[in-house]
């Protein structure tokens, strides 16, 4: 029978956390026309052995978690983005050119143990 994991520990498990990047915080609002910011998110949390079987993890993370359970000197698998998406940015450069460009891998959509 599955041992119910305590609620507290679920919170520490690897998952996606919200992170809104406001360009004004970086002082980039002076040259970025749009967007004013974007929801970038980030991955954080533990990757115990049990998780690698449920979360969309890679095989080597499974093996690493297995080895960590046997020998704690082997580091745990880490919580990383497994699905990313681009954003478009409209900005102005030093020659007063207005540029519209897309940048890959700017938004974390999903996390997993890798």
């Amino acid at each position: 029978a599955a041992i119910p994991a305590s609620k507290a520990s679920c919170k520490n498990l690897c998952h996606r956390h919200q992170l809104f990047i406001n360009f004004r915080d970086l002082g980039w609002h002076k040259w970025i026309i749009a967007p004013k910011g974007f929801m970038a998110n980030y991955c954080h949390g533990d990757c115990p052995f049990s998780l690698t079987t449920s979360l969309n993890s890679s095989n080597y993370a499974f093996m690493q978690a297995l080895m960590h359970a046997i020998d704690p000197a082997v580091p745990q698998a880490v919580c990383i983005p497994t699905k990313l998406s681009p954003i478009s940015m409209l900005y102005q450069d030093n020659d007063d050119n207005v540029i519209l460009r897309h940048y890959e891998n700017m938004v974390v959509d999903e996390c997993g143990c890798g």
Partner: protein
Amino acid sequence: FQFQERVFLQSLGLDKEPSPKKFQPVPSILKRIFQDQEAAATAGVSQDLCYVKELGVSGNILRLLPDQGFFLYSESLSQASSRLQKLLSFNLSAIKDEEQLTMAQLGLDLGPNTYYNLGPELELALSLVQGPHVWGQATPKTGKMFALQSVPWPQGVLHFNLLDVAKRNNYPRKNLGLFLEILVKGGRASGVNFQLEDTCARLRRSLHASLLVVTLNPEQCHPPTRKRR
């Protein structure tokens, strides 16, 4: 922080953090493309970021280059009242060598559409400038004229496809120089001189030129793999 920031800005294709004095006006086409992409990203719709469907061309970088040219003034007064001459200059150096040009569209904004001032007719001629302009030279040394167009009145935005001109003129990436002549055609009722002069003066104030350039960076846009037969 400055080091990481500079590394990140370089990955954005910028040598250093821009510090523009004032924001240029953003044309509605760029706003629309940006909003379409944002809407698709929000809806989680996958999109081909190497094709600009609103313009019907491949490309993943769109640049609007402002005109850095200046008006030329002809000696003879009669000419001055009916003819406008402007050197248009666009700095292409921001375009990296590896980028492929897929679109170069000149936009000439003659001024807002209004119900009055419906006239006089204009004739516009565009030629490529050969070599740098020598101060004091009445008109620049120009190559063949590549566009000639009449418009019924001095209003609205005209577009000219300059892809071939820009491609031919593009290595090494430097300034693209064009010579624009606008002939204000008289032939109206009395008071024509006043109208011609008034039109030229108004055009000098309202004329705004820009070059919309679309490029495809092959390092970021892999050619679509050919389907196996």
